[in-house]
């Protein structure tokens, strides 16, 4: 089948898509966007998290055909050219990235959290990121990164910089 979808603001089309393919496979193998990761492919790890019409989803659990005529935003679509999104910037600075395989999903999940809750409490951060597994960091520096990004977004020119 043919799938037409807007990805990161650009209309894209893929042909000969097998009906069993996931959105994750479509992005990674057909549209040249491998940023969303394939860590479990069963919705348990969150590493494939993308926005589907502004709602974060595990792209491995969405059939490719379901995104017809809809909007997808992936980790590749968060930065503004060379300028990283504050969440991305904070992940690098706080040391929240080790192997980085969980990072794209966590960045999207944290990005969504801060859009909804600009100054989240620690329990709120933990709850929001509980669907994203990380095996390297023990999560401490991921929490640091989200706190830092929240501070930066609330006060872009402020002391957090």
């Amino acid at each position, binding site marked *: 089948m043919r799938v037409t979808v807007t990805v990161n603001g650009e209309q894209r089309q893929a042909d000969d898509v097998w009906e069993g393919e996931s959105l994750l496979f479509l992005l990674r193998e057909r549209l040249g966007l491998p940023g969303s*990761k*394939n860590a*479990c492919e069963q919705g348990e790890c969150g590493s494939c998290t993308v926005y589907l019409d502004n709602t974060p989803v595990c792209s491995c659990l969405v059939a490719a055909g379901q995104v017809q005529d809809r909007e997808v935003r992936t980790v590749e679509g968060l930065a503004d050219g060379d300028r990283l999104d504050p969440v991305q910037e904070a992940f690098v600075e706080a040391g929240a990235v*080790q192997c980085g*395989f969980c990072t794209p999903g966590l960045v999207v999940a944290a990005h969504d959290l801060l859009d909804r809750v600009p100054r989240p409490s620690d*329990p709120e951060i933990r709850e929001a990121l509980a669907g994203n*597994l990380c095996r*390297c960091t*023990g999560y401490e520096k991921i929490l640091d990164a989200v706190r830092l990004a929240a501070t930066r977004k609330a006060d872009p020119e402020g002391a957090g910089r």
Partner: protein
Amino acid sequence: MSLTPAELTSAVAGGIGSSAQRPDGNLKVRGEFAYASDLWHEDMIWGATLRSPHPYARIVSVDLTEALRVPGVYAVLTHQDVPGQNRYGLEHKDQPVLAEDVVRYQGEPVALVGADHPETAQRAMKRIKVEYEVLTPVVDMETAVDDTPLHPGGNLVRHVPVRRGDQHAPAEVVVTGRYEVGMQDQAFLGPESGLAVPAEDGGVDLYIATQWLHVDQSQVAAALGVPLEKVRLTLSGVGGAFGGREDLSMQVHACLLALHTGKPTKMVYNREESFYGHVHRHPAVLYYEHGADRTGKLVYVKARIFLDGGAYASSTSAVVANAATLGVGPYDVDNVTVDCWGVYTNNPPCGAMRGFGAVQAGFAYESQMDKLAEALGMDPVDVRIANAMSEGSVMPTGQVVDSAAPVARLLKLVRDKPMPPLSTAVDLRDMPGGVSNTTHGEGVVRGVGYAVGIKNICFSEGYDDYSTARVRLQVINGEPAALAHTAAAEVGQGLVTIMQQIVRTELGVQRVTILPMDTSIGNGGSTSASRQTYVTGGAVKAACAAVREKLVELAGGRDLADVDLAGLLGDDVIDETVQWRHRATEPIDPETGQGNAHVQYGFAAHRAVVDVDVELGLVKVVELDCAQDVGKALNPQAVLGQIQGGSAQGLGLAVMEEIQVEGGKVRNPSFTDYLIPTVLDMPPMRIDVLELADPNAPYGVRGVGEPPTISSTPAIVAAIRAATGLALTRVPVRPEHITGT
């Protein structure tokens, strides 16, 4: 996308001791870092692996006819298509690339399919007809040696005895225990994957996520039956490792398919296949007896340790040596009788995982120290401090510990931290059971536990453990710029950052490029045993020293500090490659276990505070504090990241992580049923980092990655015991162990 990873260049200040940022960090947060599973090649095909459904069976026949008829299939291969040696292995070549007449574990590779789409490959695999004669599997590690021999030499992989002092010393107080450690998985997030590209010279280029390029290269070349130089490996992005990528997984398989079809071949495991596709931490049964005097001073330790190596040896021999030589823990004990056996069974193969033998022993000896404290009516920290080893102590192997061993100090640091407050306002997210809303505090009991551990750093027992580094210095755009190249695998730990920091410090340049890691340069050794900062860091430092010597020659007697580096270099290019070794170790005596087997020892201590819902058996770790000596923190932020991540894996083993194996079959090969800690499970940590330099090591460093994984688990279990009063002799602790239901 290019198959060759990006060169990583940073042009910032940030020598050793600073928390310089990762040069691959921006790529990773943008989703642009190329992991092995992201690779793509024009005209590539997909490989898939047919695996045995039985733990032990004879293969009666294999029929490929129907599979080959599936449109889109390029090749279906069996062991008959392995042109070289159909045996590989890290320490013993005992594992077939593809099974011949017998399969020895559930998940053993039997056949390969290469096809135009992963789904085509799956459909073709289902049409391969394999007739098995199912055999009774050997599954009990304690009796395996006397059971059906699974390999020509029998089922004993290695027995290491350690004997020291009086074997019959009497003691006033004796405590005994039997302990069990379940099978833990590395659960790295990036699945096994790679892309093999056939080359015009008849060889192959393999882009791969691994921990050790050169040991992969030699095993792949032997299996393909081609000269070493025709198998060229380049490290792709690695999504974590933790020991699980020391052994081959799909390396030979992808190369076989590529050479048979003439097409670039990509293989990517899904999570279920990943559980079958790599070795795990050895499950263990450990019998301990500790004898002490009435003051709590240890008189003797006796231990019998069984490690289940599963169907193939992998690194079992080295794991056995670790469990045996580190078997009494970081304590002074004059009289030691330890035996450790690693055996073959039909369970999943086990090998390296962070902590490597020291984890299993650590759970048992620390449980014993708590039991001893209880028998004596002593404080558990006091009894540890009374026996704590220190610099100058003698190990059970006779080896003198000749650098810092601040065991007592680490214990005092974690003991003296303020206690987290008992939560007053009920937030479900802080409760055992969390938002499942199982308690608002009723039935919840707090407990506190302590543990300390010891780990050998770098390869042991006389292994020629070295790394190779090349450093080039030249002027680029008017600015001195350095380039560093090794074959040492960056798996996420931050070796690329450390290499840049070392070059900046040694050569006084800011702009440093890290070349992709590949086999065009000499061996970098394994990314394991907490050794890369020590050994490859040492090699980079030594290569920089060789470059500096050339600079000194150019300077002709002027002090380098007074010279403009760019002006001095002009158009010259200085390019030096060195091999660097740590000090040599010795084999241990096979009868007594005596010998200077280890390079360096690392120590960490933990305090765990837990809340336990004693009615439901649910545990919430409230705080997990750690103190560790790292010799010298080359990158303090990365050091904390290792301690936090290592402690989290120890938490996983304590309360949730186990591959459940019944009759040789894995019951939970998914992240739905094999649980690893989430951000809700992992508590805040307060961490003390000591920097007591080891004079034998580059910059004084002490390996960081593994020690925190050892003491984390027993500290948490001790805390659960304190809360419940239960013996809890097995990890992971499950709810039913607490409720008794």
